[in-house]
């Protein structure tokens, strides 16, 4: 692309609102978002959060009630789906059942009135990219789920859109294939350099593939940032709870010594030292969010950690690379703890064991809302 002076953002979503009849709140309630060219972006949220509606507005299947969508500075208002420089990979793949793999992939190029030889060479190149060349003559019904997913991707990519929308691209695959395909999608995206916008409800999918993630809730963006930032620095209770496991403590600030807050948490019957250089006035209500893997478990009181709790193991769930533990505090509150299984020895923890939990002052996130 030519490097214009003060180039407009590649994709600009500007205060977009969409309401559906009968909805309690707007499906999409004033979303603004800029996405850079070549970016791998994920819209993450629970079902009904508005992410799919936003995606359908980008594709042109729905029109915003308010706000604008600009692609390379061009307003998409009134531009029908067939005229947009956008392609979509549907959740159901929506492959044409009466066409072969090659015909499916070539369908979009045929609409551009390209010559037969041009279509054939571009289809062949795309089928090579998704490793489907040997299946070019097959019908979708003769393919496995993973192969269909690749046909859908190839069909959407072959037109070289400015923006590729992927609606739950991995949802229909089984777990093992999903993990392989995540890396494959990233590899392909880097090869073709097209902007990818993935919509997903699967936080693992979003965090592992995307360069930036927007977490959506009730039609609004709850938090926008890089995957690690969203995971380690959630700004709200919703984001902390939606992404990954989390233990929440409601508490009240009782002191502040420059770098650390002292927070009294009634539901844990404990005082915690929490790193918080910005400082907070005593008396402020806060919620502490503590990820399960940030907690250390030991049989002896951990002297080197500032925050310590005693508890009883209630259950241990072996998950392979890690085990999930449920530990009950003396007052009955349950905490989730993740133990990584670095050794092959049998787990030392069993239900009923009395243990000590400890965490660093930098481990919890302070949520003000």
């Amino acid at each position, binding site marked *: 692309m030519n490097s214009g002076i003060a180039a407009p953002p590649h994709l600009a979503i500007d205060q977009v609102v969409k309401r559906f009849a009968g909805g309690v709140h707007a499906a999409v309630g004033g979303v603004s978002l800029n996405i850079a060219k070549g970016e791998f972006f994920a819209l993450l949220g629970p079902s009904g959060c508005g992410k799919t509606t936003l995606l359908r507005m980008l*594709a*042109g*299947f729905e029109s915003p009630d308010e706000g604008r969508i600009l692609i390379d500075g061009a307003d998409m208002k009134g531009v*029908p*789906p*067939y*005229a947009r420089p*956008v*392609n*979509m990979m*549907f959740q*159901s793949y*929506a*492959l*044409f*059942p*009466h066409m072969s793999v090659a015909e499916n992939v070539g*369908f*979009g190029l045929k*609409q*551009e009135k390209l010559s037969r030889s041009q279509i054939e060479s571009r289809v062949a190149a795309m089928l090579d990219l998704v490793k489907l060349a040997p299946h070019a003559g097959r019908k979708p019904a003769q393919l496995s789920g993973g192969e269909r997913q690749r046909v859908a991707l190839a*069909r*959407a990519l072959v*037109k070289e859109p400015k923006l590729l929308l992927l609606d739950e691209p991995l949802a229909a695959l089984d777990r093992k294939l999903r993990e392989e395909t995540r890396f494959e999608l990233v590899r392909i995206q880097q090869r073709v350099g097209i902007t990818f916008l993935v919509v997903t409800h699967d936080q693992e999918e979003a965090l592992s593939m995307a360069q930036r993630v927007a977490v959506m809730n009730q039609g609004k963006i709850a938090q926008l940032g890089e995957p690690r930032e969203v995971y380690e620095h959630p700004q709200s209770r919703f984001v902390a709870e939606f992404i990954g496991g989390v233990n929440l403590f409601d508490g009240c600030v009782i002191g502040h010594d420059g770098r650390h807050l002292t927070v009294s948490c009634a539901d844990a019957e404990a005082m915690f030292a929490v790193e918080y250089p910005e400082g907070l006035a005593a008396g402020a209500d806060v919620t502490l969010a503590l990820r399960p893997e940030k907690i250390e478990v030991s049989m002896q009181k951990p002297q080197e950690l500032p925050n310590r709790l005693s508890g009883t193991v209630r259950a241990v769930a072996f998950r392979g690379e890690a085990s999930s533990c449920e530990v009950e505090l003396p007052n009955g509150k349950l905490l989730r703890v993740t133990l990584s299984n670095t050794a092959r020895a049998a787990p030392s923890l069993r239900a009923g064991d009395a243990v000590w939990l400890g965490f660093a002052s930098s481990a919890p996130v302070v949520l003000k809302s």
Partner: protein
Amino acid sequence: MMPGPGSIWRRWAVLALPYAWLLLFFLVPFVIVFKISLADQQIGVPPYTPFLARDDGGWHIQASAANYLFLLSDSLYFRAYLNSLRFTAVATTICLLIGYPMAYAIARAPGAWRTRLLLLVILPFWTSFLIRVYAWIGLLKENGVINNALLAMGLIHAPLPLINNAFSVQIGLVYSYLPYMILPLYATLEKLDWTLLEAAADLGARPWRAFWSVTLPLSLPGVAAGALLVFIPMVGEFVIPDLLGGPDNLMIGKVLWDEFFTNHDWPLAAAVAVAMLALLLLPISVIRRRLAKGVA
């Protein structure tokens, strides 16, 4: 999965029923009709010569192709067949052209409306077919509703020839058989995955192109089913050409009726019927082969 012996038995039982039905009510009657078509007319009960006759030499078969040769020799039959096929082909095409958009609109209508619209499609069945065809006479005749209305409005000065011609037969055929076209088309279109059309639009196909390259090919089984359902009974149609047609609009069903009831020539009537069936087998097998290819 390997079907167990019990399931094979059950499958045969399920298949046997329709086959028994076809054998009893289609194949056996057909063989009887075919047998009669090889006989000769005679005065008596039944009015044709028996297949097996006994004389001094013992039993011998009385069969000849004379009736079929007669069909070939008199151009009346050929013209009647041709007329039937022409009327039927045109009426089937018109049914398809009217029925497809209707079926499409019903299939895309919101849920509650679909049932209501489908009810409207089958509503005419609540009145006798014969009465509905008679009603068309009242509409189309020289001093019928349509002519009177046009005359009263001053749009025409003499009644239009709307009845007892090819036009009225065509109207009668299309009107009577349209529901049989709409219902199978609706059944196919209703199952169509509409995200395929969104996918086509997303890939750059304008609505009309998306229809031609996605909707239409995927609804061909419905088109074929509707066309067969309409075409086959129309070819043998007797009531409509009899009531709405004129002397020039001979259809094979009418000829058959005349041979059977007016001339009491059962063998010739049977030959006409067998020839009609043979004539129908051609388009049916063509459509079936197309369908089989499309599905594979």
